[in-house]
C-alpha cells in the first residue's frame, strides 16, 4: 500500500475530477485540442455595443447563452457546467450529494447596468432620477429576485444547492489569484482532516461594459482591436495589456487515502500551495520582486521541493508590460540560470485573462499538461522581449517529459499565489 501522507505527515491531496470552460470551448477535451493547436478564443465583442470603448475585444463565452444577460448569471452557469464535468469525472457522491465543502472563487457581485436602467425607467421620465428615487421604486416586492441574484453569496448558494456540498460554502476573492486561492483552501481543509473531499470552483463571466471600462481606465487592457486573436502577447516586446476573458475551472480534490479507498482514478497531485501579499501598491508589484519571489519559495517549501525539480511553469503571463517583467524577475530570482531553460508558457495568450477563474482554469490546463506530456504554447510570440529571456514555448505546442508543474497567479491588491502540481505523489 503506497503512503497516503506526504513527507510532512499531512494527507496527500489528489485531483480526481476536473472541468473547464473558456472562450475556446466547453469541456477538457475540446479545450485541450484547441489550446495545443495554438488557437485563440479572443474576438470582437458582440454581446453589447462597443462604440466609445478603447478596447473592443474579449474572450467571451457566447456559446452558453444567458437571457437576459448578467455577469452574475453567466458566472453561475459557467460554475455549474465545470462543477458538473468535474464531479462526473470523479464519480464521487451521488447526484446532488457531493460529500464535502465548496470553495468558490467568484468576481465580486453587484447590481449591473441593465437592472439599474430598469429601475431608472420605473421612476419615469417626468422625475429627476437619483438614488432616492431608485430606492423608492426598489421596494414593494417588485424586484425581490434581484436581492437573491445580487447578494455576494448568491452564486455559491446556488452551486451548494445544486451539487449538495456540505457545510457553509465559501465565496472568496483574491482578485486574479482567486482560482488558486480556492484550490489552496480546499487543499488546506483536506490536510486538516476536516474533509475527505472538496469541490473547488472558480468562475468569471465579467465581460460587461462597466467591467471593461474599469480595466481600460487603469490602462490594463490591450487595445490591439484590429486583430483580436493576436492581441494577447505575453512576454513579447510589443505586448500592450491583457485581454479580458470569461471562463471557469473546477477541481474535485480528495485525500489520496479516500480516493484510493473508493478506487478513483487519480489525475494528479496538488503537492504545494504558496501565497504572500505585497504591500507596495494597489495595482503594481514591489519593484524588488520580493513578494513574488517569496510566494514561489513558499509554494516550493510547502511542496517540499527544490526549484530544480520543477520542469514546467504555467505562467500568470497576462501580457501587461508590468506583470510579465515582474514575473520574469520573480522566477529568475528563484530559478537562477535555469529560468532561461525551463519552459514557461502562458495560456492567456489563447484564452485571455479569465480573472477570478484564471487560477483554476490554468490548474486544469497544468494537470492536462501532465496527463498528455505536452506543453501548450504561448501564441502571438513574434517579437521576443530581450529583457525576458524565457523559453515561452513559442507559438507551437511541444511534447516534453513533465512531472512537476508550477502555476502562478497574481492579482490587484498585492495578491500572489502559486500552486505546485505533480502527476504522481512525491
Amino acid at each position, binding site marked *: 500500500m503506497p503512503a497516503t501522507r506526504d513527507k510532512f505527515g499531512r494527507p496527500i491531496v489528489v485531483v480526481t475530477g476536473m472541468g473547464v470552460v473558456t472562450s475556446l470551448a466547453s469541456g477538457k477535451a475540446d479545450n485541450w485540442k484547441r489550446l495545443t493547436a495554438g488557437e485563440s478564443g479572443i474576438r470582437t465583442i458582440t454581446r453589447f455595443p462597443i462604440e*466609445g470603448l478603447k478596447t473592443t475585444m474579449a474572450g467571451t463565452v457566447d456559446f452558453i447563452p444567458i437571457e437576459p444577460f448578467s455577469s452574475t448569471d453567466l458566472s453561475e452557469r459557467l460554475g455549474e457546467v465545470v462543477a458538473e464535468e468535474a464531479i462526473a469525472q470523479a464519480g464521487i457522491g451521488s447526484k446532488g450529494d457531493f460529500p464535502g465543502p465548496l470553495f468558490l472563487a467568484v468576481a*465580486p457581485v453587484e447590481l449591473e447596468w441593465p437592472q439599474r436602467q430598469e429601475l431608472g425607467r420605473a421612476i419615469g421620465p417626468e422625475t429627476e432620477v437619483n438614488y432616492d428615487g431608485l430606492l423608492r421604486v426598489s421596494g414593494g416586492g417588485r424586484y425581490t429576485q434581484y436581492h437573491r441574484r445580487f*447578494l455576494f453569496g448568491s452564486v455559491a448558494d446556488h452551486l451548494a444547492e445544486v451539487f449538495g456540498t456540505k457545510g457553509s460554502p465559501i465565496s472568496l476573492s483574491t482578485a486574479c489569484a482567486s482560482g488558486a486561492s480556492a484550490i489552496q483552501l480546499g487543499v488546506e481543509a483536506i490536510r486538516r482532516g476536516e474533509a475527505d473531499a472538496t469541490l473547488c470552483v472558480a468562475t468569471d463571466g465579467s465581460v460587461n461594459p462597466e467591467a471593461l471600462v474599469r480595466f481600460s481606465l487603469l490602462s490594463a487592457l490591450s487595445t490591439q482591436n484590429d486583430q483580436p486573436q493576436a492581441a494577447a502577447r505575453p512576454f513579447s516586446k510589443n505586448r500592450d495589456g491583457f485581454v479580458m476573458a470569461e471562463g471557469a475551472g473546477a477541481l474535485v480534490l480528495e485525500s489520496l487515502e479516500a480516493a484510493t479507498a473508493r478506487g478513483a482514478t487519480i489525475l494528479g497531485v496538488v503537492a504545494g500551495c504558496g501565497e*504572500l501579499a505585497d504591500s507596495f*501598491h494597489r495595482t503594481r508589484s514591489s519593484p524588488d520582486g520580493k513578494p513574488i519571489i517569496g510566494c514561489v519559495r513558499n509554494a516550493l517549501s510547502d511542496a517540499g521541493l527544490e526549484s530544480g525539480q520543477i520542469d514546467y511553469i504555467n505562467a500568470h503571463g497576462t501580457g501587461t508590460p508590468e506583470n510579465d517583467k515582474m514575473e520574469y524577475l520573480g522566477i529568475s530570482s528563484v530559478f537562477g540560470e535555469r529560468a532561461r531553460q525551463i519552459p514557461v508558457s502562458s495560456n492567456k495568450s489563447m484564452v485571455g485573462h479569465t480573472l477570478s477563474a484564471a487560477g483554476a482554469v490554468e490548474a486544469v490546463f497544468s494537470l492536462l499538461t501532465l496527463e498528455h506530456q505536452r506543453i501548450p504554447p504561448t501564441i502571438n510570440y513574434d517579437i521576443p522581449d530581450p529583457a525576458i529571456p524565457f523559453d515561452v514555448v513559442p507559438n507551437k505546442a511541444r511534447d516534453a517529459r513533465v512531472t512537476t508543474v508550477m502555476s502562478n497567479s497574481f492579482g490587484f491588491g*498585492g*495578491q500572489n499565489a502559486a500552486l505546485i502540481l505533480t502527476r504522481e505523489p512525491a
Partner: protein
Amino acid sequence: MTETKPSTEVWITGIGLATSLGEGLDAHWDALNQRRINVDEKGFAPCVVHPQAPLNFDAQIPKKGDQRQMEAWQRIGTYAAGLALESAGVKGNQEILARMDMIVAAGGGERDLAVDSNILNLEAKGNSAPGFLNERLMNDLRPTLFLAQLSNLLAGNIAIVHGVTGSSRTFMGEEAAGVDAARIALARIAAGQSDIALIGGSQNGERKDILVLYEFGGFNLKDRFVPVWARRDKPGFALGSGGAFLVIESRAHAEARGAKPFARLTNVVADMARREHPGEITSTLETLWSKLGKLADKGAIITGATGAEPVTSEERAFLAAHPSFPVRASGTMFGHTMETQFPLGLALAALSLSRGALFPANDPTGLEVEMSSPPSQIVVIGAGHWRGEGMALVEAI
C-alpha cells in the same frame, strides 16, 4: 481514519472597533453600559441607518494619498484593523506582520451615485444611442474608483497601510463571510498551518446604493428605530456602519511575545440551512450549539440577529430553548453591519469576558435579561438575513 493533531489553544489578543458608537474599547464599553444608540432616521429616509462616528483617519492611515484611494468602507476597515494591531501590540512589528495571515470578510462596490444618476437621467431624456453608456462611463468614472470597489482591496489597503503580508484572503457572502473568516483562521491556527491572524470586516451603512439591494427584498427598517427584538410587526434591519477586527494567535505564540489575551476563541462552527421549511433554521442553530463544546452554567449569548424574518423568529425559538443564557442583540446597538456583524460579536464577547461582565440589556420586550455574575463563556451567533448560520464559543481565560 484520519488522525487529527492535538488542538492548539487560540487566544484573542487584539480588538479593533470603530463603529457608530465611537472608536476604541473604552468608548465602546462606556457606550454599551450607557445603552447608547447612534441612529439616523432622516438622512436616508425612510430607511434607518446607524452612521459611522467621526474618525480622525490620519491616526491610522497617515498618508492622505492612501485615504483618497479608498471609499468609506475601506477607510473604516483599515482604521479598525490598525486599532486591532495596536491593541495586540504588533503594530509596526515588521517581523510579525510579514508572516501574519489575514482573512477579511468584505462586501464592496461603493458606487459613484452622481455618475449613475446622471447617466440614468440622460437616458431618460432619450440618450439611447449604442455606445452612450460606454462613452459616459469612459468619461465620468474616476479611474481609481474600481480599486475602492473591489472586495479584496480592503485587505489590499490593510497590507499597504499596516504591512500585514503573510497572506491576504477575502471572503464574500454577507453574514456568512464573517463567520467563515473566523472559522478558517481559527482552524488554520489550531492545525498549525498559521500562528497569528488578523480577521474582521467593515461596512459603511450610509450608502443608498446598498440600501437599494436590501430594499429589493424588503429588508430595510423604515421610519423609526426600534430594538431588534421589538421588530416582529415591522421586520427588518437598520444598516450599521463600522469596522471590527481581531488579532487571534496560538497561545504559544502569544506567550512567547508576552501578549495578554482578552479571551480564548474555542470554536467556530457554521452551516447553511436550505431554509425551505419552517423550523430549519432553529434546528440548524441547535445542531451548531451541540458542536460548540462543553457549555457550563455561567454563559451568555451575543447574537447578530438581524430583525429580518423569518430568521429572527426562528432564532428566538432557539434562544427560548436555552433560557439560562442571557442574550444581547448587537443589532440593536450597532445596526446590522452584515459581513462585519459576526467579527463584531466576537469582539464584544472578548471585551465583555476581559472586563468580567456582560453589558446591560437594551430591550423593551424583556427577551434580554440582566446578568449579575461575570460570564465565563459567551456564545456568538450569526444567522444571516437570507442565508448562512454560524456560532462561536469565546471563553474567559
